[in-house]
């Protein structure tokens, strides 16, 4: 069974909590909730219910323009309780937020290693009668298969 799930999101002005473009931790929990739910679906075929979070530490702020990945790792399976570690990583950020001067429009810094912004733990529950057993992996293994109605063109002008 796949024990690690990822989701992604590029933060927009619609997600901002203040005029500086800071994203509230609550907005981040929207995505954390989705990624831990995927882990429960893989485990039980059920969306589960979240009982609560603990030891959530916020190391870095998240702002508009940041490109974020959310990760959930299944760490324990009880009779009906499941525990996940949750992590939030920043993959890229607008160059001006890293203090770079004379930035060009749209300039970004893509980090060599994703920056850990938040980590913590969550406990979820799937009642016995809702548990439907381990589910398929849910991964796209070969995305670039040929498509008859979307043919490859040898020379495309751009």
């Amino acid at each position: 069974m796949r024990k690690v799930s990822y989701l992604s999101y590029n933060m927009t002005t619609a997600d901002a909590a203040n005029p500086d473009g800071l994203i509230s931790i609550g907005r981040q929990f929207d995505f954390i909730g989705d990624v831990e739910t995927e882990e429960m679906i893989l485990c039980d075929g059920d969306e589960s219910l979240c009982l609560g979070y603990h030891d959530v530490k916020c190391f870095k702020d998240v702002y508009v323009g940041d490109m974020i990945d959310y990760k959930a790792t299944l760490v324990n399976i009880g009779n009906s309780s499941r525990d996940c570690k949750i992590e939030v990583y920043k993959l890229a950020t607008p160059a001006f937020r890293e203090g770079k001067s004379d930035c060009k429009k749209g300039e970004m810094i893509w980090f060599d290693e994703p920056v850990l912004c938040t980590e913590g733990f969550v406990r979820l529950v799937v009642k016995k009668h809702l548990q439907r057993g381990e589910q398929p992996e849910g991964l796209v293994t070969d995305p670039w298969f040929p498509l008859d109605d979307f043919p490859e063109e040898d020379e495309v002008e751009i």
Partner: protein
Amino acid sequence: MNEQQTVTFRYRMSNRDVFYLGGLINGARNITLMSDTAVRLMAKVFGNTGHCVEVKKIRLYTPSQAGDYMEYVARAKKIEGKKALIEVRAFKVIEVPSDPPYPSSIDVLPEPVLSTVGQFVYEAY
């Protein structure tokens, strides 16, 4: 394929994304998320988000519903100067069954289903 020139983006469709009755997501929402994926690829390859200057073609295969988990993959098919031809494919990997045994039951698809394919030309600023 150069690993540098591909990115993966995964997202769960929610009721915020619903446009039509019955929890149906509009194709444009998928295209928005495909462009978010393309922008990530631009940031990775060019260090610049750039902007879309042409949509070559888009094909919609399978609609999305609220609750579906989607996976978007993007690759740079061609790069010329500051321009890139980017193909993005959207797949549905988890879907809400039409007749679930329990209200919270949800299915991981044994084989992800192709939802949308598009080719875009992006240009770095």
